[in-house]
């Protein structure tokens, strides 16, 4: 699913002043592309992903993802868009602590009204694919960071969304585990053809599957190269 941003700005009010998080960003990502986004802290990377995930609205400009015009969506449509179009992975995993790995992976399916049996089957399949079969009944606290992130990735894939957004998914992991996770994301891209937007500092490890490299600085795209 292709993504198109035109003149997108995001300003955060801070008391009297406004903090510009994104400044007049134009960006087009064709369907199936693997894009790596980097930039210093505060450069607007997360803001960009949140806008594309319809978790926030731009101050100005328009965002179109496939048939969805994100700036026009109602709250309910935003939720439906997130559910079916976007799989999102966070630096802090954001798993539900009281639920098992299976429970967490089943969550999007449960929200979408799948029957208990069908969602169990799908979640088991995903966890097996992630190599977490024998960890499926563990709770997040009983899992390592890498395992938790793999559960989170499985959850992002549960409803097979065409878009995968990952915001520093390796930020909390050691370099060995980080490269495993990045390899996993690369493999997902290769096997499913999803459009992937990956925010990371580990440019070296992601290089094998990166098609395009974008660098943000002070809310502006200062580098955009195909590799």
């Amino acid at each position: 699913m292709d993504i198109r941003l035109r003149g997108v700005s995001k300003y955060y009010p801070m008391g009297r002043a406004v903090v510009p998080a994104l400044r007049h960003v134009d960006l087009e990502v064709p369907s199936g592309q693997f894009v790596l986004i980097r930039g210093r802290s505060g450069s607007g990377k997360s803001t960009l992903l949140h806008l594309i995930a319809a978790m926030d609205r731009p101050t100005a400009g328009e965002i179109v993802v496939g048939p969805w015009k994100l700036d026009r969506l109602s709250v309910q449509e935003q939720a439906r868009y997130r559910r079916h179009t976007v799989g999102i992975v966070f630096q802090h995993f954001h798993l539900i602590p009281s639920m098992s790995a299976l429970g967490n992976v089943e969550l999007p399916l449960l929200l979408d009204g799948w029957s208990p049996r069908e969602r169990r089957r799908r979640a088991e399949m995903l966890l097996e694919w992630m190599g977490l079969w024998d960890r499926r009944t563990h709770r997040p606290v009983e899992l390592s960071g890498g395992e938790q992130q793999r559960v989170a990735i499985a959850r992002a894939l549960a409803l097979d969304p065409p878009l995968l957004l990952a915001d520093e998914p390796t930020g909390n992991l050691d370099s060995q585990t980080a490269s495993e996770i990045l390899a996993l994301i690369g493999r997902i891209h290769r096997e499913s053809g999803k459009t992937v937007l990956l925010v990371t500092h580990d440019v070296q490890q992601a290089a094998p599957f990166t098609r395009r490299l974008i660098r943000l600085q002070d809310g502006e795209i200062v580098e955009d190269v195909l590799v």
Partner: protein
Amino acid sequence: MYWYDLVQMAWNGLSRNRARSLMTLLGVTIGAAALVTLLAYGSGLQHNARAQFEALELYNTLRVTSRPIPFSGPGDLLYRTLEKDSLSDRPAVALTDSVVTALGQIPGVLAAYPEIQFPVRIQANGREIAGGVDAVPMAFGRLRAYQPRWGRFFLHEADTAIILSTSMAQRLGFSRPEEAVGSSVQILVAAIDWAALQRMLFGGWYLSGGELPIRIQPYRVQIRGLLDADDQAFAGFFRVLMPLGLSRRLETVTFFSTVDLLFRRAGVSGYSAVRVHLEDPRLHDSVRRRIAEMGLYVTSFREQFAELDRLFWLIDMALFVIGIIALLVATIGIANTMRMSVMERFREIGILKALGAYERDIQRIFLLESALLGLAGGLLGWLIGWGLAELIELGVNVYLARRGVPAVELFYFTPGLILFVGILTLLTGLLAGWWPARQAARVDVLVALRQV
């Protein structure tokens, strides 16, 4: 989301902080139990009064007087004595025996008889109990409510006999009802001592030696029959029946003659009141009209009961308000718990929303939680309130039984009550959860996810 999953998630939310949920539940339970017990007590009062009314055949009874009795409520007794002279400008018709006879001949009237009621003490087996005599006409032998359970109705107008309740016979020391029937007992009746009264009226209290102008007169009578105490409820504790003829032969102070002594106006003599018993309650209006045409005044017990119903309604409302306050406090407890719950799960709500949960579904999860608390509290409260009522009733009845008083039903539980309390607690649960659930649904995804 499926309802099954919503309920499951609500349940998970409640089980997460079990102690807090249980404490909130306890609050609702106590509130609901208070409400249930108070409401059951209120309807018990009403139910008992109604049963009493029916047992005494009062639905079928009219009370006829020479002057109007503006009885519009229990508080009006005072008004009735204060205003007695200004109420009527036409000459009053005295309630003489010929008037009683005429009343008895109105079609649809089973019996008309002077209202004679006086206190009595009964002695037998070395024991003494107090009671209140109701003089009844022979025609009452036909009424089911006056059919003795043991023995029989009076033989004739002048039968020197009384009919008691089984519980009174028991208190008189007859171990079996059969023993009481036919046995001879002594009754003590108060009569006015005219000489003493004159001394008192003209000489003052000190001349009379501080004595009441009353003489106690003993008579021997037979116990003709025993009524079932349970059928008469409270009346079974003190009510003594006597044939009208016998009561006239006794020299007594009736409840009304003492009042008459003070208030009777010149020119009006005769009985203070006559009771008219209808053959059929449906004849009420026509008989009433006929009596009014005779220049007499009618008070119907049925109308008085309607007034009484209003009083019961007020009592019910008062009890309801007290119970509702208890429930309201519990509701605030639910609201508080739900708010804390929403705050604790702030981040999780953010995750759910990031995954595409609808606000509607999140609101439902929290509403279900508070509704579950309310409903469970309501049902538990109903059970506990019911158990409590049974316990109190048992205690009271054990106490009464030792004193020979028939068992009473203090609390009255209707199927409507459980439904009412269930719906009410469900509604208060939903109400208490409404605002917290709304806030949960409105959680901002990014703000929530920033909390690590």
